[in-house]
């Protein structure tokens, strides 16, 4: 491990302490860690004094960071380990750096690179997405192609899907995203400090708390701000309420996708009740305006504690009953069981995170491995079913609703009426680096900040769990019936905007 610097979650480190390896050594070090079970948390490029550099954060049960200088082309790591696949394509798209020998070289979000240099995907950005990219096709007498999107049939975000099918069976699903690209990372590097939390909250609206926690913690670390215990309790409760609301909404939608309507109607309404609890906490159903660097803007008073506690007591049995209705219905289980299976080996190879990973038997949970806020003092969840299918993903989410409810009930009496945070100016430490990781409802969210000599943000990198998990959705469709796509899709429920940034 000489080639890495071991860091803690949210620990400020001097950039000078991060190893600066020759590229070949960097490549070998990352690959060797990946082959020993290490996973990629962050792997990105940035420009420093006219020279492109790479930086990687890897995790085992610890966090490791390392870096190197990179030329215009380099020998792809993906050729030896699929864990790097999407990261290398992103590096190519953002900085025009070519990964030689990459097995699936295509754009990620479809935008010109930051340097304004030659495009490594040979796209002309005057053309509409997807530019010059020929989709992967399968040829044969009865093989056909189904194209869906970007505008889908419901009220959902845009993305393009290509299914290569033989009759009803799907050989291959290719997912092209990028329609939601808003330039989040570049905004973070250019806008004034007061806009940072507002943009962080809208990276992925359903993960408002997850992303704003990452950003706040990263800024707190670099600016040396301390957060009081009361604020930590509020933040943890808010993150768990976000998790419950999303899990409940999706379990209802899964039931709807197999044409079992009553649970969908009940969970549709009950999800709103949990959003309203977040509104009681912070004045907004998605937790907007609640988490800010240095703490939270609203305290958890006696009134809020009682309202939340009473509502949870009312809702918990209802949720149990509706879940029982879903998971004891033979018609539901017949559709959930052994549908959309991702094997443990595949999940490991592509680095699935969150409940999708846990449903495949990858136990990683950032709340346990790299705890922030109150998580070090809270018990972990155990997963009963890890077969990698729709039923496992549903079951893990059912278990997590129970687990999160218990955590909130444990935390509510621990509230402390310490002052809420007032808007403050902060100064980030110069020439520093921090990586922040939180287990949001979909899985591992991570933000990285690199500051320059003046303490300004030189590079801001965001990674939503969907960045890992979209590949999992594509794999789950292999050799499945195309009519099971909605079911598989909803069992992952990935973020388009979180991926597209």
């Amino acid at each position, binding site marked *: 491990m000489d080639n890495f610097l071991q860091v803690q979650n949210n620990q400020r480190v001097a950039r000078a302490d991060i190893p600066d390896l020759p590229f070949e050594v960097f490549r070998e070090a990352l690959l060797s860690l990946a082959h020993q079970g290490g996973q990629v948390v962050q792997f990105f490029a940035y420009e420093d004094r006219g020279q492109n550099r790479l930086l990687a954060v890897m995790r085992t049960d610890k966090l490791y960071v390392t870096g190197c200088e990179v030329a215009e082309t380099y020998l792809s790591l993906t050729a030896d380990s699929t864990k790097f696949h999407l990261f290398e394509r992103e590096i190519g798209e953002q900085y025009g750096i070519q990964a030689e020998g990459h097995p699936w070289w295509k754009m990620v979000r479809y935008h010109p690179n930051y340097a304004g240099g030659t495009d490594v995907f040979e796209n002309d950005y005057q053309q509409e997405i997807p530019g010059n990219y020929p989709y992967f096709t399968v040829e044969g007498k009865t093989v056909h192609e189904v194209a869906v999107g970007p505008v889908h049939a419901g*009220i959902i975000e*845009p993305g393009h899907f290509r299914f290569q099918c033989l009759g009803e069976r799907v050989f291959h699903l290719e997912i092209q995203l990028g329609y939601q690209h808003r*330039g989040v990372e*570049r905004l973070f590097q250019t806008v004034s400090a007061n806009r940072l939390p507002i943009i962080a909250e*809208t990276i992925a*609206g359903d993960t*408002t708390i997850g992303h704003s926690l990452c950003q706040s913690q990263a800024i707190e670390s670099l600016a040396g701000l301390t957060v009081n215990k009361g604020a930590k309790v509020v933040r943890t409760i808010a993150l768990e309420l976000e998790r419950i609301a999303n899990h409940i909404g999706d379990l209802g939608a899964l039931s709807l996708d197999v044409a079992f309507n*009553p649970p969908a109607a009940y969970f549709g309404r009950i999800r709103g009740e949990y959003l309203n609890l977040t509104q009681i906490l912070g004045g907004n159903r998605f937790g907007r305006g609640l988490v800010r660097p240095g703490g939270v803007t609203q305290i958890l008073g006696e009134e809020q504690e009682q309202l939340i506690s009473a509502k949870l007591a009312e809702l918990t049995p209802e949720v149990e009953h509706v879940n029982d209705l879903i998971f004891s219905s033979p018609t539901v289980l017949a559709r959930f069981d052994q549908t959309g299976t991702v094997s443990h080996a595949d999940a490991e190879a592509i680095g699935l995170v969150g409940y999708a990973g846990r449903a495949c038997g990858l136990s990683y949970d950032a709340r346990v491995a790299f705890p922030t806020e109150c998580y070090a003092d809270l018990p972990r969840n155990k997963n009963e079913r890890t077969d990698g299918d729709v039923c496992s993903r549903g079951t893990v989410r059912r278990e997590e609703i129970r687990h999160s409810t218990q955590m909130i009930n444990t935390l509510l009496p621990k509230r402390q009426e310490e002052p809420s945070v007032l808007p403050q100016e902060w100064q980030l430490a110069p020439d520093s680096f921090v990586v922040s990781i939180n287990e949001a409802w979909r899985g591992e969210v991570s933000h990285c900040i690199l500051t320059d000599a003046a303490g300004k943000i030189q590079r801001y990198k965001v990674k939503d769990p969907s960045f890992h998990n979209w590949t999992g959705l594509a794999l789950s469709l292999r050799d499945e019936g195309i009519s099971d796509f909605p079911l598989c899709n909803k069992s992952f429920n990935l973020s388009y905007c979180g991926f597209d940034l």
Partner: protein
Amino acid sequence: MLKVIKNRIEQGHRTSKYPKEPIQLYHRFRGMPKVVKDCPAELVGRCADACPQEAIDRKTRQIDLGRCVFCGLCETLSEGKFVHFSQDFEMGTSCREDLLTLGDLPALAEHSKKHFKKLFGRSLQLRQISAGGCNACEADTNVLNTPFFDLQRFGIQFVASPRHADGIHVTGPISKNMRAAVLSTFEAVPSPKVVIASGACSISGGPFYGSEDVVGDLNSLIPVDLYIPGCPPHPLTTLHALLNYFK
């Protein structure tokens, strides 16, 4: 089967009586901001400087609801002496200028186009387009189909095909990668058609204003008929706007 019946009885009837009966939202909810007109200019200036959305005009003291994300910063900074966020969620307007406000909006029902009421008052089908939205606007629009709001009882539906729609409901700052899809979806809707901009993003770019990767303002692409402010708009804000504009 027994479980279905037991759950049905437990769930009961949950549909809201709004708009026949008013709904009081929790006092922490940040709805329509109310401006204290005679507060010191220095305080207005401080709030305007701090506002991340540049939504406060220091001369007229108006707040631009098309830019505001209702973060509550100005209320905290001024301790309620310049701005106070009320629990009033009825904020839809038919005109962009009306969104610049001191806390009072013209009655939406009187400003809607009369032929829209005649055409769509009994049946309105909308095609939703997410164009760079963060999925919060989308989620809180989708929620209108749940039993509490039960949008369909008003004859309003979100449909799958633009060919079946009477108009479009757009969320997001119109990412450049969605510009063409927004225009072709709009073209596929038969005339006469309505255009609804929902959320700060589609009205002004929202949190993403200034980004090179977004168009930032739906009105610059297609003339907008109805504006629904918020980040995201509360489902009741959307419901109120739809009912008052079309009914």
